């Protein structure tokens, strides 16, 4: 499943989600439900700012994996899994657990498409040089 398909499934499953963007830790956008690029960029920029700001709230080690910012106008959700993340906006008073679950499923679905590790190239058998083969033939004759 690619990012666009994962986002299409997400918006179909969850009627609470108004907009969602899949992104990478460096800010690269993988997919968006928004038509306008500026809006997509604003969501990703904000998500990275929220993750960065929230990570300072704790002195001990511990990465921020989820954020919900709830306002009377609506809620903003951010979910991070390693280098990948998803940010979404909802109407006011969403079903928080359900939204987080759907966002994580979407993130996993989009990640499933990507190869996790490049497969090592199979070793090619060494081609024997012509001189080596000729020498071997000579040995056989002797």
């Amino acid at each position, binding site marked *: 499943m690619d990012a666009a398909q994962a986002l299409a499934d997400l918006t179909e499953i969850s009627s609470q989600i108004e907009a969602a963007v899949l992104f990478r830790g460096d800010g690269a956008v993988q997919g968006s439900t928004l038509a306008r690029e500026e*809006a997509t960029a604003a969501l990703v920029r904000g998500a990275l700012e929220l993750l960065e700001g929230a990570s300072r709230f704790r002195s001990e080690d511990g990465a921020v994996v989820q954020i919900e910012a709830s306002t009377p106008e609506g809620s903003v959700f951010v979910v991070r899994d390693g280098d990948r993340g998803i940010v979404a906006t909802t109407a006011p008073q969403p079903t928080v657990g359900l939204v987080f679950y759907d966002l994580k499923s979407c993130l996993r679905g989009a990640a499933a498409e990507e190869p996790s590790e490049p497969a090592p190239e199979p070793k090619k058998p060494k081609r024997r040089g012509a001189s080596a083969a000729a020498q071997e033939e000579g040995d056989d004759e002797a």
Partner: protein
Amino acid sequence: MRRKLLAVAGFLTGVLAGAALYRRSAARRGDRLDVYFDDGSMVSFVEGSPEAERLLPVAREMLAAARR
């Protein structure tokens, strides 16, 4: 009769005022920032706390940008 009407009007005004106050306080309760960490812990910051004051405006801008 007039006294009754005044009593009913007063009662209705009170109910409306109470409903408006309740809605406002309910809306205020919505301003919150919940942060979940990878060890399973969660911290919640309500509006008025320095942490929420720093990041809630970012969330409001994001909502506005998504709906523009």
